[in-house]
């Protein structure tokens, strides 16, 4: 399926990009980082306009994120249960809700681009936790525009090395994720040892 999605973007450009990133933002696992790098490469080859690419990637993602938030906030328990079941473990939503409350805006910002696999969960959890919509929208726009700019620019710079760059970024995302987990666990450990 990934091959077909990528060929849709190389053939149909911004319109396909808009649709695919929107679907991914709701929670369908699609290779968005690779897609944006490919788009950056296409921009450097003159096959796509950079502003159009940026607008399509940002607008599609923001709309998808807003849909996730709206389902969490106003969708009712049945819709939320359906989407959490689709995203993975149902029990994880409570944990994500707690994270959404604790991380707040910076959490929303970072899960748009640096820790993007958590993005759909945070959208839903922000909605169910009743995080104010205008703040969610602000951090969402900031994060998605940053993500589009970072990955499309990287694709432009490494336009002839898209697959290799995708491998590097994939490992870097895991490294940052593991590091964040280590920081949280380290803090908990430090608190426990201090109590003794």
């Amino acid at each position, binding site marked *: 399926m990934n091959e077909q999605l990528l060929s849709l973007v190389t053939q149909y450009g911004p319109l396909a990009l808009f649709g695919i990133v929107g679907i991914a933002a709701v929670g369908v696992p699609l290779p968005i980082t690779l897609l944006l790098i490919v788009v950056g490469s296409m921009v450097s080859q003159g096959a796509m306009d950079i502003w159009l690419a940026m607008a399509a990637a940002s607008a599609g993602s923001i709309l998808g994120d807003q849909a996730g938030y709206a389902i969490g906030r106003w969708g009712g328990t049945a819709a939320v249960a359906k989407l959490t079941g689709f995203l993975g473990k149902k029990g994880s939503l409570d944990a994500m809700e707690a994270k959404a409350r604790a991380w707040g805006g910076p959490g929303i910002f970072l899960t748009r681009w640096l820790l993007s696999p958590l993005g759909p969960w945070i959208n839903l959890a922000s909605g169910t936790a009743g995080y104010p919509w205008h703040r969610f929208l602000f951090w969402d726009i900031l994060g998605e525009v940053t993500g589009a700019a970072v990955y499309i620019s990287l694709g432009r710079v490494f336009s002839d*090395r898209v*697959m290799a760059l995708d491998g*590097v970024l994939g490992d870097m995302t895991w490294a940052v994720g593991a590091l964040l987990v280590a920081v949280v666990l380290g803090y908990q450990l430090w608190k426990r040892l201090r109590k003794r």
Partner: protein
Amino acid sequence: MADNSRRTLAIALAFLLAIAGALLFASRASRQAHHLRTANEPIHGWMSIPFIAHTHHVPSSMLFAAIGVEPRQPHDHRSVRHIAHELNRPVPELIAQLQKAIDAAQPPGGKPK
């Protein structure tokens, strides 16, 4: 009390595991980044001929000629998979033909600038 110690130990182990994971992925990323400029970019079915030409620093007209296809004007962004479907030929066969043309165009031991 024993439960508390066990929980602390579990957190400490998870912490060490997370640190090990972060180091492992960071080292993998840095190793891949080191070879970023020299690694060979594989050809995939989703790529268009101009895209493959760009990643391998060869003229796209040469690649179109190698697979016997007349490029559409002004831009031909059909994917290899799409072209293979139109020609009623298997995708791997077309990719092999493109790879052969690229290998022939590149000087031994390196890529043309």
